[in-house]
């Protein structure tokens, strides 16, 4: 059996001809929580899209494997079937497609012949309640006219329904009030406690450390200008909160000079 983990080695990628990722090395082990932090424009979201296979993002080199399966040549749906999930910072609206229908289709695509309809319904209602959502939500069109908080809750609902092997949360905390943030934390913890999500690994992309008060990270990485410049334990997030990215950047460039 191939070695498990979401392994990214020397990944380089560009958007619209501009190189954004300049050699990323990162490994998310099953069941672990990694936080990826960095200032705006450092390439965090590009990493999420490149891993998920967005057609606008071109991989220039390197590799990404999920439990030994190479991701980069697969279309986005096959990456999801392999066990990758991306919680979008700005999820697209799909007018005319109900949340319930979307979830059912996605679940049966990712885990075919898995749940009987009655069990699926039970699970979905449990999750809706856990996320503190109105069940009427299920009849609405996907993200169509949703508030920012509703969109992020729907991302979390999808994550728990799909129970991926690895979940990337791209700035899921941005623009959320404290209740929504708590709901996000609850769904990550809920997934990790569940049978299906016991071994899910998380890559939490964030600008601010505050989401890490709700989801404890095992490892923290700092990304600047398309590279991971520093990695450490949870204390690294505290340091960033204290000194900010600029100080960190200075420290790093100082190191480079030295």
């Amino acid at each position, binding site marked *: 059996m191939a070695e498990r983990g979401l392994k990214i080695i020397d990944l380089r990628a560009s958007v619209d001809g501009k190189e954004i990722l300049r050699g990323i090395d990162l490994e998310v082990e099953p069941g672990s929580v990694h936080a990826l932090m960095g200032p705006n424009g450092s390439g965090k979201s590009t990493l999420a899209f490149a891993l*998920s*296979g*967005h*057609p*606008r993002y071109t991989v220039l080199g390197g590799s990404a494997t999920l439990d030994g399966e190479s991701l980069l040549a697969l*279309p*986005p*749906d096959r*990456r*999801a*079937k392999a066990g990758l*999930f*991306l919680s*979008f910072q700005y*999820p*697209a*609206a*799909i*007018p*005319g*497609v109900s949340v319930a229908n*979307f979830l059912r*289709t*996605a679940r049966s*695509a*990712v885990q075919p012949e898995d749940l009987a309809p009655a069990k699926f319904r039970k699970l979905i209602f449990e999750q809706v309640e856990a996320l503190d959502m109105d069940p009427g939500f299920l009849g609405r*069109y996907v993200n169509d006219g949703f508030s920012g908080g509703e969109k992020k809750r729907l991302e979390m609902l*999808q994550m728990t329904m*799909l129970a991926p092997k690895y979940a990337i949360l791209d700035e899921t905390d941005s623009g959320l009030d404290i209740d929504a943030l708590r709901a996000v934390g609850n769904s990550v913890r809920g997934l990790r406690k569940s049978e299906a999500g016991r071994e899910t690994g998380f890559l939490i992309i964030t600008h601010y450390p505050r989401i890490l008060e709700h989801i404890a990270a095992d490892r923290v990485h700092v990304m600047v200008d398309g590279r991971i410049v520093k990695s450490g334990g949870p204390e690294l997030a505290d340091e960033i909160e204290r000194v900010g990215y600029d100080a960190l950047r200075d420290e790093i460039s100082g190191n480079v000079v030295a």
Partner: protein
Amino acid sequence: MSSPSSSLERAIAFAPTPAGLEAALEILERAAPGSSAATLRREALARYAEVPAPPGSSARGWRHNYADLPFEGLRWSSERVAIDDRPNRTETASAEDGEGFWSGGLFHLGSTYFAPRRTDRVDPRIIVVPLDDAAHERPDLVGPLRGTIVDWRTDKFAALATAFENCGAFVYVPDGVVLEAPILLAWAGRDRNDPEAVFPHVVVALGAGARATVVEQIVGHGDGLACGIVEVHVGPGAQLDYVALQSADEGTRLLMRRGAACEAGATVRWHLADLGGALARDVVDARLAAPDARAEISALFFNTGWQHVDLATTVEHASPRTSSTTVVRSAATDRGQGRYLGNIAILAGAHGTDASLRDDALLLSSNAHIDSIPALEIAANDVKAFHGATIGSLDEDEIFYVQSRGIARPEAIRMVALGFFEPAIARFPSERLREQIRVALDAKIDAATEQPE
């Protein structure tokens, strides 16, 4: 299958000429002496020759010229068949399909009306009969309406339909009668290899406070022609849902003209789905000439292959506090062509009018084309009017989002495209109809996405 072979002996080759009409009149006179409406038909044919053809689309891929539509090789007949054996093969829901689902209905193969085996299924409170029977038996009801709502004198193809009318239906729902189940008027093609020219004329009248749904369905017809008139009169405070669902064969041409007149506080809801045909010209009007009348129009079409749809809707606000909502969703792929003319006219004196028109079109291939031409004409003060139109292609961010949930690209495209139609589908009046439309659209998307672009 027991076929109505006798009708073949009473058929002629259709020709929109005086000689062609005289041949038709001979058949009509033989069937029912003295009731062929010969004078009216001759006048209508003269108007057909005089009235200019509507302009075609100027789009490069538009293949039909209204001034020069070929009508060769079409059979014209006029007959009803009172046989007990319903044909086994029907491509549409029949009046007996689904116990209690229909309040009544009329079923045609080609122009030939089949008297249903069990007419007692028609709700006893209402009238659903062939138009000629109604004209004979209830001239008091039919006389004031027939030919008064759609003006064939100014519409080339309505004139043609009047001259060669060979089937029709009359639906009457008296004052205060509220029908739960819809009324079905169905036209199925008789024989794909022996195309017919079918000229239906439907008249629907709802009394004060009545409520009903009429479902008109046209399927099959091979390389045939369906050219018809639908006139609906909605009494004070009454509500009519009229569904026109067309899934004709890919060689069929349809030239349909439908009009509604609403009395005070009445609501007419036109629901149109053009899913088939080589050319479907659909002209729909709602005239709101009494206070507080309301019109809702929901229409959708999806042109695949070489299909052309030419849709025009007009709501005329001619009285105070009238309101209307028009929602159109259209898509085209392959070499499909579409045109939509959306008109709202608010006449002087129609103060307090509230009108909206929303039209969105989706192009799924580079050879497909849809023109969208909204027109708003306001001659009254104190009115609210809105119109908005978009034409676009599929949004790659939406497709990516769906794909990122494990759904393969063709399925993602299907989901997004079907979702695009949903705002129009959702306005159709029953889940059964909505599902029928979704299934038909789904099959069309399948056929379209299988072909390499």
